[in-house]
């Protein structure tokens, strides 16, 4: 468990943890002055937590400060982490195979959020767990998206079903399901083209993918995950809302959390939609996709060591 936390922490903060740095050691041993509460507010905002969560954390720390003027930075950080854990309670998604196989996971998201890379990493991870996995290259729109997934498939020795650019994405999904079934795969991971949530016609294509999968299995796709770029701000909440309304999301994957971004917008998404977060992307290597842990996330954000 500690190893996993370290991975999380290292990934989440390759540089000095942003929050700790911005508060100038506020979360060290120093006593909190009233002025440093302003700095704390700044730190929380710059983590993209949004107005609501920021105010909630601030209120609790202020309350504790009101009771105890000797409050130290570390205690304030602990309060912050506790509030965050409370807000995110239940936000950890756990992936289990459903029966009958294959369990279908569709990756959805705006352009450049990291769907293709996540699909490859996830397939690799499930394979490491001893599962049989088939990947469907349903991004038939973007130039070289299929080649990108093919390169991953070769590198990681993944089963891939692909057609050509311009092909009907739903037809590829249909064939891929059959192939997955025939090969006895536990999982079918469907990579889709990036689309902005404001484009109605592209959302329709997703609905079509879903419809054809349901011809094989009425419960498919069991998982419909939104892949969210962790460095995007409040708009990721809008993205999630619209995709959820149109496609009934079942979970999230948050990518690119290995920068200095805190990915606080996921807190906003959780508050609004209660969609569990299954995985976080913490780097470019296949093993950098990690299960999401509320405790680890909260601790890493507030730079709390055990």
């Amino acid at each position: 468990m500690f190893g996993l936390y370290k991975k999380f922490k290292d990934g989440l903060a390759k540089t000095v943890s942003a929050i700790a740095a911005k508060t100038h050691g506020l979360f060290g041993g120093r006593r909190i002055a009233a002025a440093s509460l302003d700095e704390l507010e700044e730190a929380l905002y710059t983590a993209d937590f949004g107005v609501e969560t920021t105010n909630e954390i601030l209120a609790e720390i202020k309350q504790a400060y009101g009771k105890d003027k000797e409050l130290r930075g570390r205690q304030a950080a602990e309060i912050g982490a506790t509030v965050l854990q409370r807000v995110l309670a239940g936000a950890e998604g756990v992936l289990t195979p459903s029966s009958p196989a294959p369990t279908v996971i569709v990756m959805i998201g705006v352009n450049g959020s990291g769907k293709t890379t996540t699909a490859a990493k996830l397939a690799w991870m499930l394979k490491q767990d001893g599962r049989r996995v088939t990947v469907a290259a349903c991004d038939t729109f973007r130039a070289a998206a299929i080649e990108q997934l093919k390169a991953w498939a070769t590198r990681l020795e993944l089963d891939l079903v692909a057609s050509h650019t311009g092909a009907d994405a739903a037809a590829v999904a249909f064939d891929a399901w059959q192939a997955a079934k025939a090969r006895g795969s536990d999982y079918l991971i469907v990579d889709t083209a990036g689309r902005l949530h404001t484009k109605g016609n592209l959302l329709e294509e997703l609905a079509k993918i879903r419809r054809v999968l349901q011809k094989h299995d009425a419960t498919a796709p069991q998982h419909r995950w939104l892949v969210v770029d962790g460095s995007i701000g409040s708009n990721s909440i809008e993205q999630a809302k619209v995709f959820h309304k149109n496609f009934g999301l079942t979970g999230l994957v948050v990518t690119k959390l290995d920068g200095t971004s805190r990915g606080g917008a996921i807190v906003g998404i959780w508050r609004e939609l209660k969609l569990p977060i299954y995985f976080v992307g913490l780097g470019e290597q296949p093993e950098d996709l990690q299960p999401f842990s509320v405790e680890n996330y909260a601790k890493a954000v507030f730079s709390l060591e055990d």
Partner: protein
Amino acid sequence: MFESLTDKLGSALRNLRGVGRLTDENMADALKEVRTALLAADVHFTVARDFVERIRIQCAGQDVLKSVTPGQQIIKIIHDELVKLLGEGETSLSAARTLKILMVGLHGSGKTTSTAKLGKLLKKRGYRPLVVACDIYRPAAIDQLEILAKQEELAFYADRNSRDVPAIGAAAFEAARTATADCIIFDTAGRLQIDHDLVEEVRKLHAKVQPDEVLLVADGALGQEAVNVAKAFHDALELTGLILTKMDGDARGGAALSIKSITGVPIKFIGTGEKAADFDTFYPDRLASRILGMGDVVSLVEKAQESFDQKDAERMAEKMRKADFNLEDFLAQMQQVKKMGSMQSIMGMMPGMSGVQLPDDSERQIARTEAIIRSMTIQERRKPEILNGNRRKRIADGAGVKIVEVNQLMKQFQQMQQMMKMMKGGGAKKMMRQMEAMKGKGGVPGM
């Protein structure tokens, strides 16, 4: 949906009525709202704070103009200040020939797509661009650029066997000579600004090719992180401009203000869609309106001007005035609206409508209405009153709809004609009542 700053200020400033002068005291609530609105639009915390301070200084001591409400006056001050901040600096590209452009940014920000788009734009401006694939990391990134270059008929250079990015950059000059290119655009790999090795690599590429322009490609929806990203790239490479991508979404684009304020680097282009032509020069006033949630009226008007024939519009207005408006005119009008783009994108530009989602079938509804009218003879379109049962049946069959739908359209069209007659007669009040009644019946045909 975002509540626009205009609405928020309205309520914050209610107690300001009757105040003759804006002071720090009576402005406090309003400025708090300004700050919250900026933060909600993803403007960086410190940038928002400094900006609010500038507004406070500008507002203090100003007389409240009699003609407008204090809210409108403050919004004008904010808007002007935003335009000033966003628009500072040179937005045109360097005049150098050979023009060398280096594209940099985070993963997935849109560098490769923007490289092709910029190439297309420069080609239109008379350059002969060569695009160079310097992303040796992401699988198939080279293929992607090659395909896009082929589509846009741009010269392309890559070395699939080399792992030495600066050397690839240097070799591109030879390729440019062979292709007689006078503009070289280097597409680089996505990299985190804190990834020391990769930042070092792009610095070496920079030193080798000595670009005239270093453009940071940034997702318009970036959050608070935008500041760290821009600062680090600027420190490492001395950026000369910014390209904001994915602006066809509904992100407010506050990141642009953050990046601009922190680095001073001018915003040069915005990406507005997946097609190579969806690439625009940057207009500060439009982005200012967008950040404030005021809608992009200027773009809307321009789009309308581009797609509407002035004479047609006048003729149409005249017809409406005389209530001499038949189904043929209606069809022509629908076509003009369609030329402006999708209904959804038009809605997005209207003030207060940016987050409104049209029902998914609204485009289809318009297409059906069109099909019905197109299934009529010219005579029927001009004189809809001649439509009897037989004709309606024929039209329905031709358009692939049910007769009910034809009847519905005719009924709505009649109501529309009645409305125009009432406008002609000046019965405005009567018309309002009529419109209320229509609301429950599905509104104007096809809308």
